[in-house]
């Protein structure tokens, strides 16, 4: 059924570690976007809002990480109550807090470590691709907040095409350089 997938637009948040300055604006924006209050101080200190995106450093680079919304998502498979599910074939993996029992199987199963519990430890929270913002025609909060454009909401197929073109250009440049030597 792969030909069907080719035709469907699957958008994911794509990070460019080369651009990320580790300012953590995305973390603050993410927490605020998922809080009841629209005031940062209220959201963080009164509500205890937490981000669903994580800035980690490795190998001298800073990498923003958030849910990849895996096609065969381990978190969905291990969830005993069906609290994690995907609406439709290509939508984001969503956490339904009312079904969540806080067993943390998903936290352990996630290969990226981007699922966490709420501060009270009762239910899990994770990236929802800001579906509510997207429904209003807005970009995900982290993407909108990034001051250097290190995050983008991209069509996966288009992103792959871009990567191929870039790889082809690199190969072409290398072989051209070789032929000129």
């Amino acid at each position: 059924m792969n030909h069907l997938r080719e035709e469907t637009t699957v958008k994911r948040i794509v990070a460019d570690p080369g651009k990320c300055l580790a300012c953590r604006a995305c973390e603050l924006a993410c927490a605020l976007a998922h809080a009841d209050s629209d005031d940062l101080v209220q959201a963080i200190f009164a509500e205890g809002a937490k981000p669903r995106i994580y800035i980690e450093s490795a190998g001298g680079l800073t990498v923003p990480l958030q849910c990849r919304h895996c096609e065969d998502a381990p978190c969905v498979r291990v969830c005993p109550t069906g609290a994690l599910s995907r609406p439709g074939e290509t939508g984001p993996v969503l956490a339904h807090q009312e079904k969540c029992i806080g067993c943390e199987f998903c936290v352990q199963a996630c290969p990226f470590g981007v699922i966490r519990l709420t501060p009270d430890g009762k239910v899990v929270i994770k990236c929802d691709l800001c579906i509510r913002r997207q429904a209003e025609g807005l970009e995900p909060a982290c993407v909108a907040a990034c001051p250097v454009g290190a995050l983008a909401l991209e069509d996966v197929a288009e992103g792959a095409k871009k990567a191929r073109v870039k790889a082809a250009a690199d190969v072409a440049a290398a072989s051209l350089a070789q032929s000129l030597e």
Partner: protein
Amino acid sequence: MVERKLRSVDPATIQMIELADRAEVRTAWDRLDAQQPQCGFGRLGICCRNCFMGPCRIDPFGEGAQEGVCGATADVIVARNLLKDVAAGTAAHSDHGREIVRALLLAAKGKSDAYKIRGPVKLRALADEYGISRDGRSDEQIAEELAQLLLGEFGKQEGMLANVARAPEQQQKNWAAADAVPRGIDREVVTAMHLTNMGVDNEAEHILLASARTALADGWGGSMIATDVSDVLFGQPHPLRSRVNLGVLKEDEVNILVHGHEPTLSDVIVAAARDPELLAEAQARGAKGINLAGICCTANEILMRHGIPIAGNFLQQELAVMTGAVDVMLVDVQCVFPAVTEFQKCFHTKVISTSPKAKFVGATHIEFHEEHAMETAKQIIRVAIENYSRRDPSKVNIPAVEQKLVAGFTTEVVHQILGGRYRPSYRPLNDGIQTGRLRGVAGVVGCNNPKFLHDQSHLAMVKELIRNDVLVVQTGCSAIACAKGGLLTPEAAKEHAGRGLWEICRAVGIPPVLHVGSCVDNSRILTACAEMVAEGGIGDSFDKLPVAGAAPEWMSEKAIAIGMYFVASGVFVVIGQPLPVEGSRQVVDLLTRTFEKHFGATWAFQPDPVKAAHLMIDHIDRKRADLGLPPPMYEVPYAPKTVEAVAAAG
């Protein structure tokens, strides 16, 4: 076009913003949009760049790093950052003050082509206060000694600032107990920068007390000296009528806009613009005259001394150029957008920078030195006259919006307007408060900030205060906002003031809102409070007076310094946008609670201007109750809270 949020309540400003949109010219509001979202760490005050093991920041979610590389916690980082802001604000006001004193020295020595002693009464009063002998000496000789003495205050190494003696005893005691007595103006700024250096002061409360000391060196030092010496050099202001808003620009005259802060230049420009030779030159180019108007505080300075109209406040600086009718915009220091020079690409306006301290890319730099003030002023006016010929009439758009105002109230003038020429006194003011005809006095000051609907907070707050019988005194861009809103006229008392305040305004013939000058002139509010204390009956120290202060649309480091010196002097201060301290619960508590113990006053943060006015009135009512003063004489819309409600509100 997408329906956009209203950006101003001022009709002239709204009109010019629409013009900017049509012309696709970017203004501060657009640049603010482009900055969204602004950095949360900066807002919370939890980033530290004081050493380069960092930059460090504290994780506000409480999970990541809770201390910098050196171990500094959020409390220490937030407090240090605030002290740096206070030091910068103090430096700005005080460096301004220094220039004025240097100009006085030149005038005293006869070394200037422009400066004379125009406030001899104030000169003599200051000489007596500071113990400078007047026997058989000319004003110039007295002025020279005064200038030397005051210059000494900047570099003072021993003892304390002379003006500390102007404060009531209780304030002096508070400062001594908190180690917050300001010693030397420059010294406090230097010490502040030392304390915030890596690994020096690492206790939040101690850092905040240092910020009080630094700010006091501004309020009772740099700013107060700037005010006093400006009065000596340029004359003591007296109430006068003038006009405000972009409509004061003239289509058929050479328009020169002065923008910035130091009256050393603007005051000389006023004199030069009246030069018959220059007028003739302007007329030869087809202009009917030379029209001078101001933006920001340099405008307030020449308004209150010469009645020069004000073109607008802080957020109108770009819009003024967009009228296409400004031939020269003359800038010196503070609050000048680097963006103003960009507008030269679309309009014929020449931006001329004048301060040896401040250059702008794209501006014409004609450096101003006090020794040749008049010569430079004339040179600048000639540039404007020449540039008038290049004005493109098709681009001229002057909004037909202007408003009358009365300005020029000072600590000294209040004696006379209230007490009369023969028995100048604060008695009637204190009496008004004691009887409850006046509920209290509020200072509403400060900037514009595009995060707030332009001018709206100033107007809403001041209207709420005066309709509740609180007399309002104003400086800076806040005064300009309310002037544009028509509140600086005696007629405004009838329309907007409560009955008690209206009775007083009617009896004395004053507006319900008094313009007391520029932002350094906030020091006038301190000296006026000292007069109220000295007159007696409404509290023997600042913290007992039924008074409060506010800066609803503040944006500058200078505003932080001003707020801090008022709080440290015992005056409750509420500001619109919170200080960048909310990343530390301890610092918030210190500023909004513990400072009461040290200084008898606290900070409060309240973005809603009417709610903020109510906080001020609650405070005033509490002070009235503490003094045993009666409730307001007449019924007021915002009634005093019952004792129980006050207790419940803390």
